[in-house]
């Protein structure tokens, strides 16, 4: 089964590479290919569309000013399931795309365990065994996978309504849908924060697909080592020395 996914992913990546292009300048590494970036932004787009239309249903008296953007309450409610479906479909493709790098490893549990220090800023550099994705990103990925499965099931139930599925399934899926939405929302805040102002230099990874080598060895040393073959800590020291020489 996985070989079929592999073949599909490769074919897709090549096809998209032909269509788009990865701008990798000197001193940068290729991080995300066109196919990944395309999927990421489609997922993001549908997520926000679903989120905003969903707000109109979740708490209309709070978000009543939102729905006119989508042409009023009824249209927002009508489009919400389609956006949700878009989100789930594209995320499914992303999941196939990232199934390999996202597999959970011991390093990730270790990363999660010293999460407090990374958040409080004491640890300037991530532990050397942080691979292509660190524990937080993997946790969020799998959280989104779980969330979108819940979205799909409860969404279909809510969409077709009590007429086909009965009162209690709708009532329960009404809660699960909300819970997973709120959790995912929380995760998305953090994701956006870290990928923009939280960790400068990350955003271009999803725009041009390239990251600076400094970024690589600081946040994903194991991946840096794997790609460039050099030792990240040593590379960081050399860069610091070069920095002081330039300053003098």
């Amino acid at each position, binding site marked *: 089964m996985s070989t079929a996914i592999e073949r599909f992913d490769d074919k897709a990546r090549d096809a998209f590479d032909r269509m788009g292009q990865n701008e990798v300048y000197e001193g940068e590494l290729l991080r995300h290919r066109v196919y990944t970036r395309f999927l990421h932004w489609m997922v993001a787009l549908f997520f926000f569309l679903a989120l905003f239309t969903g707000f109109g249903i979740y708490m209309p008296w*709070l978000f009543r000013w939102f729905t006119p953007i989508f042409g009023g*309450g009824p249209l927002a409610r009508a489009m919400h399931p389609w956006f949700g479906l878009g989100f789930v479909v594209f995320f499914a493709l992303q999941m196939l795309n990232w199934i390999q790098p996202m597999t959970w490893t011991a390093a990730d549990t270790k990363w999660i365990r010293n999460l407090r220090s990374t958040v409080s800023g004491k640890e300037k550099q991530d532990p050397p065994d942080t691979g292509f994705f660190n524990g937080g990103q993997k946790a969020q990925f799998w959280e989104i996978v779980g969330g979108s499965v819940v979205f799909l099931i409860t969404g279909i139930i809510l969409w077709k309504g009590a007429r086909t599925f009965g009162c209690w399934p709708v009532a329960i899926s009404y809660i699960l849908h909300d*819970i997973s939405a709120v959790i995912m929302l929380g995760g998305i805040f*953090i994701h956006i924060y*870290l990928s923009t102002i939280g960790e400068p*230099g990350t955003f271009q990874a999803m725009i041009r697909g390239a990251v600076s080598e400094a970024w690589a060895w600081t946040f994903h040393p194991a991946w840096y080592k794997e790609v460039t073959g050099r030792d990240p800590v040593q590379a*960081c020291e050399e860069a610091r020395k070069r920095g002081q020489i330039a300053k003098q």
Partner: protein
Amino acid sequence: MSDRKTLQIKQISGHSGPSPGFDMQRDAEVCKLIDTTICIGCKACEVACVEWNDMPFSPTTFDNTYQTMPATRWNFWNLIKFNEHQREDGTIQWLMRKDQCMHCADPGCLRACPADGAIVQYTNGIVDFQQENCIGCEYCVSGCPYDIPKFNPATKKVYKCTLCSDRVGGGLEPACIKACPTGCLKFGTKDDMKYIAEERAKQLRENFGFEKAGVYDPQSIGGTHVVYVLHDAENPERYGGLPRNPVIPWSYTVWKWLFKPVLGTFALFGLVGVLFHYVTVGPRLPQPQPPLKDSTPREKEI
């Protein structure tokens, strides 16, 4: 706006804050009494409703019963349910019950409805749908313990019996109640209707041999503004699925009015938390981090 008396609103669906009409005006609670023991299943109420509300006709097909259609529809608000119940001695009791919105005191539809102003409850107890505010999410369908609200796919809105809020607002009795030939349907204040119902139930018990005759006014949803007199009040399911103990899925009460706002604030905390982290801890920069220049006081710069 009905000319003589505007029906004051007591409760509005999905509405933040109290409704303008709440406790503003004394109003007797109206009630429709349905005495199934003298209902002859003639369907005058069905026709009177379709005719008064000028509803378009929906095609019906024969399915081995006198019942007009399996359940009410968005253009057929009240329907007599026919059930042939076999007594122990083998004889048949032909039960007929008029099925329509029960206008509950604590309406499940109103609780479930997320849209603001789509479902309103007047001070006289009538629960009414305001189609222009309805967003067609059909939560009310799962909120209603009696499976009453019906969705119209063409207009994407939900419809149900309004207990003729326009006629009652204009000082008339509902159309189905006026038409009922045997007087099985009666209209008046809730106290009068309960009194007549109890008297009738007593008469059935004492004079007509229905020991378990009783009145159906379920308190699990705070009582309803449509009250039944049943031959056998202990098992109302026999009358075409009238729930003995109607209950609103708790998700529309506990979840909606307690957890949802709480979780909503959690999500907000997420946003605020992130900003707070940015303001305090600051971003994580790729190493080596360029050293800070000395942050001398501002006046030095002038």
